Structures are given as structure tokens and as C-alpha cells.
């Protein structure tokens, strides 16, 4: 049985679905007996969403000038590929 300290360490990996089967079972077994960690898991979920949502709302889009340069790069790549074909 893992303790609260270990449960907290695994929380974000659990939310990311990145824990293996055994660590998940141990974590969920701990949650069944620990109201405090259930509360912290819920809080961690909201904290995680806040970071992701903030980034989504404020992520800078690629500047148009850069996009134009990238499209030129793509065009060059296509030309050289056709040239090789």
C-alpha cells in the first residue's frame, strides 16, 4: 500500500494515463481509503486544465511572414523531389 506522499507523486502521471498497470492499481487502492488524496486529485485535475487552457487561449499563432517563408521551403522541397523523380 502506498502512502499519501507517493500518491501525490504519481498524481499527474495518473492524469496523463502514463502510469503502468501496477502503479495505477496501487494508486487507486490508496484513493479508496484516502479522502484527502481524492480531494487533491480533483484539485490537480483542475490545476492541470488551467495550465493547458491558458496556453491554448494564449498560444501565439505562427506569424504570417514566417508562414510565407515556410511555404517557400515546402515549395522548394516539392520541386527538388520532382526533380529527383
Amino acid at each position, binding site marked *: 500500500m502506498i502512502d499519501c506522499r507517493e500518491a*501525490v*507523486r504519481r498524481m*499527474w*502521471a495518473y492524469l*496523463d*494515463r*502514463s502510469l503502468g498497470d501496477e502503479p495505477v492499481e496501487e494508486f487507486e487502492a490508496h484513493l479508496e481509503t484516502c479522502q484527502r488524496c481524492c*480531494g*487533491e486529485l*480533483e*484539485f*490537480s485535475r*483542475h*490545476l*492541470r486544465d*488551467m*495550465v*493547458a487552457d*491558458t*496556453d*491554448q*487561449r*494564449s*498560444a*501565439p*499563432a*505562427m*506569424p504570417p511572414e*514566417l*508562414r510565407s*517563408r*515556410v*511555404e517557400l*521551403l*515546402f515549395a522548394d*522541397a*516539392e520541386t527538388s*523531389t520532382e526533380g529527383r523523380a
Partner: protein
Amino acid sequence: MTSTVEATVSRAAHPGATGAATEPPPAFAQIVRDHLDGLYGYCFRLTGDPADAEDLVQESLLRAMRAYDGLRDPSRAKGWMFAIATNAWRDLMRARGRELRTTSLDDLDPEAGEFSLFQTLTIEDPFPYSDELHLDFLRLFRDDDVRAVFGSITAAFRLPIVLTVVHGFSCKEAAAMLEIPLGTLLSRLHRGRKQLERGLWDYAVANGLVTSTEEDRR
């Protein structure tokens, strides 16, 4: 340089690498175009500077074009592109004589490693009082506040959060991109989260979003 992720993508989609090709691979632009905004956002996060982000995007795309023959699974293009960008950024840092800082969180702040925002809120129960104490605390933050706190996290601890939380990669994928063991990734993810929690609390107190009992006592 070929990263673990780049190599894994090539191998995974190229089992045996024999047999006749059934259809030609999609054009490079067709695969990459969908990920351009995400790639730019990631490069901006890595560098923290618009001009550096533009250079990094272009360098990453040039490297990706050269390595494109190695990509046989277009569905994994995003991870492949991000791995290339991470490598390019690491090379840029080395060229500038700057390595990714991995200072121990304990060295930065001996108490930060054990800080729990959840616990602090429970104990402090800061004004304004609320039935949904923990969630209402998060609602006090505007986007600018969150960005300021998130940007203050040590880069080595922030990157795992960016890759997993913001861009949706698994911890295993993020570890491969950063070329670190999974255990190290999980440790840095934890440290980044602790810095985030501590940063949010300090920011809230410093900017008057909450009044802590410690403040009341002064």
C-alpha cells in the same frame, strides 16, 4: 543527430524494412502543415523569444526535411517534429554556451520540494472564504497571471509540463524527446508541479489575490 524518438518512429513503422512499397509516402508539406502552429508555440515556449522561435522553427523544418525519409508513420509526425525541435533547441543552447539548467529544486528553495498548495489552502483558508476553497483559488487567476507564474518555473522542470499537459504527449514520449529516463521525467514533472504550486501561492499573496493568515499576523 537522431534522437531516440526519431529513431523509434522510424523503426516502429519500418519493421523489417523489406518488401515492395505499396504507395508513395505523403508529401512532406502535407504531413507537417497541420502541426505548424503547435510547433511554433512549442518553439516559442522553448526559447521565450519570438525571433529565436522563428529561427528554431526554420531550423527544425530543415532538419525534418532532411530526415523525412526516416518517417514511415505519418500519424506520429507531431512527436517526430517536436523531437527534432527539442534537439535543435538543445544544440542552439550548447552553441550559445547555455545548458538546460537542472539545478535541484531543493537548492533553489529548500521548502519548495515539500510545498503543497492543496494543503496550504486547507490550512490557511485565505480570504475570500468559500465553500469551494481550492477551486475558487484557481479562479482568481487570469491568463496573464498563470503565464507569469508558469514562465517563472525552471526550464528543465517546465518542459515536461509543456510536453505532457499542453501538447498531450505521454510521459514516455516526453522522456524520449528530452532524452532522459522515464523516472527522471517523472521526477522533473513533480518538481515542476511543485514550483507551479508554490509560484501560484506566492503570486496570489504578493498581488493581493488572497490574504493569508501569515499576512494578517504582521
